[in-house]
């Protein structure tokens, strides 16, 4: 009788599944239950790495659902600068399970954080819950509030129309308001606001926290969209810094371990929740560090390509053959000259530069 390891598939053994395989062919996915079709609306959210996923889904022609794309008045480059289309709505990076859970509760009006507006040193204003979404900050409080109302409506549409929700868990370390528990994407003072130990507290989420918050989010989302399927990934990007007095590598290991265990637990305990191993693809030793840039933190395009090629092969209907560029989006420039343009242009006949000797002359006698 063979022992269990002798019957294991090649991918289950390190020597055959990793060491003997050319690096670019290592495939830890094995099999994946979700087959995403090009027409299914996909929402992405999460940390920085999630931006790569949305970018590749868009390029490959999948139905990347963007409910807050920015108005067509804005040209493409300006919309990108203003962070439209990076994710499905203009929520910016969602690093933690607590942030995602909070986003749903804010969108549906069951939670309204006390921190409404933060001021920057230059007087401009930032949204404490998406402090970098508007480069340079908002001009006025009224604008910030109007934009937030519009944003949360777009979030609701995304939640209600999504078919497959891809969430990349990024961090466990976060900062919260002592007053009401509101969680901030960035520590107060980093991109607005002022850090105040009397008002702000550091939290390092546990496995139980992440599971509880993700479970609540998934349950809440399914209350408005029962058929939603979830794909969880863990960001392979290490912490930029830890708030704890210990080495950042130690905090990174803790954070990723918590997120990985939580994702595994959620995928094995909740229906239609799946784990995709992008973390393993990038961090495993087979790549010999080549999937990290010189800063040893940013993921290289080769690493992203490896992840996404396996995603398309295993998780999509049509496999990796879909990695073709979509035609460029229609120009967002103002419409071509038409009768109205011409009519106005004809009227515009008085531009001029007027010169005088000294002050414009006095009436001639």
């Amino acid at each position: 009788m063979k022992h269990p390891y002798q019957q294991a598939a090649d991918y289950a053994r390190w020597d055959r599944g990793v060491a003997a395989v050319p690096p670019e062919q290592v495939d830890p996915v094995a099999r994946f239950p979700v087959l995403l079709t090009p027409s299914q609306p996909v929402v992405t959210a999460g940390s920085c790495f999630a931006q790569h996923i949305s970018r590749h889904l868009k390029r490959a022609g999948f139905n990347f659902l963007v409910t807050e794309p920015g108005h067509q008045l804005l040209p493409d480059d300006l919309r990108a600068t203003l962070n439209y289309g990076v994710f499905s709505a203009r929520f910016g990076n969602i690093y933690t399970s607590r942030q995602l859970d909070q986003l749903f509760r804010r969108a549906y009006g069951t939670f309204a954080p006390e921190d409404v507006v933060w001021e920057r040193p230059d007087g401009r204003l930032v949204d404490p819950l998406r402090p970098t979404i508007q480069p340079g900050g908002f001009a006025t409080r009224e604008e910030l509030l109007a934009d937030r109302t519009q944003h949360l409506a777009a979030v609701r549409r995304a939640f209600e129309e999504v078919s497959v929700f891809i969430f990349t868990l990024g961090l466990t370390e976060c900062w919260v308001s002592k007053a009401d528990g509101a969680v901030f994407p960035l520590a107060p003072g980093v991109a607005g606001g002022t850090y105040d130990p009397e008002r702000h507290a550091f939290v390092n989420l546990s496995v139980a926290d992440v599971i509880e918050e993700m479970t609540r989010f998934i349950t809440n989302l399914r209350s408005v969209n029962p058929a939603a399927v979830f794909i969880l990934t863990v960001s392979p990007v290490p912490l930029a810094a830890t708030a704890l007095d210990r080495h950042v590598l130690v905090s990174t290991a803790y954070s990723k371990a918590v997120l990985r265990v939580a994702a595994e637990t959620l995928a094995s305990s909740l229906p239609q929740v799946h784990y995709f191993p992008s973390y393993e693809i990038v961090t495993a030793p087979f790549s010999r560090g080549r999937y990290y840039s010189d800063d040893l933190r940013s993921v290289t395009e080769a690493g992203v390509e490896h992840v996404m090629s396996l995603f398309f092969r295993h998780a999509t209907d049509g496999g990796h053959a879909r990695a073709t560029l979509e035609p460029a989006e229609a120009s967002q420039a103002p419409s071509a000259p038409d009768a109205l343009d011409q009519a106005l242009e004809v009227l515009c006949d008085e531009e001029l530069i007027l010169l005088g000797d000294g002050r414009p002359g006095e009436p001639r006698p």
Partner: protein
Amino acid sequence: MLEAAAEAHVPFQAITLKGEGDGTFMSNANGWTVLSDHGFPDFTDESKQLLTGSSGPIISFISGIRHVRLGLRQMDDPLERPFDFVLAEAPHMPLESGTEIIPFDGVHEVVRRAFKRRFKLMTRVAGLAPGRLVQFAPPPPVSDRWLEPFLSKQNVKATALPNRLLRWKLWRLTVAVFRQHADRCGARFVDCPPEALDADGFMRDELVRNVTHGNVAFGRLLLEQARSLS
């Protein structure tokens, strides 16, 4: 403005930017000189001579209609969602319901780009006559009483008049963008004369020549402003 100056027998030299740029000039015995030069890729030698040959202020009406056009954008495609924005200098103004709110900075940048060519021109004039350029604000928008008959003559499928508050906000934003560029050029900036505005901040009906311009009475107000420059 030129008509007002001529009417008041004020001698002037001018460069009209809407001409063919062939250096054509007109003059008459009352001391008017109007040179036609669009300024691209550069001013003609005659224009440069005018700009550098005196020591007085150079009053610029460099402007354009791009902001007016933006305010009429919904006429182009009734299916496109109308937009609105919160004007930084008047943040309490109501937003039109059912519109998509665009960040102020986004609209600001759209307007800035729309006038990029004009700003190049302004920069060049300021360079030729350092410290002497006085930039006047683009004229205020006309009321719906003027806009409605204009649109009815055009082949537009409007079901309603454009958002008048949006038109006003786009004008104020354009004024701000021109002021900012004037500041960068070291030019003085002169805002629209308050007497030219009705209670809602639009051009008084009796001062309107057409939907983008004032008449000679509006020109008189500008002339008064020009005369009062210290």
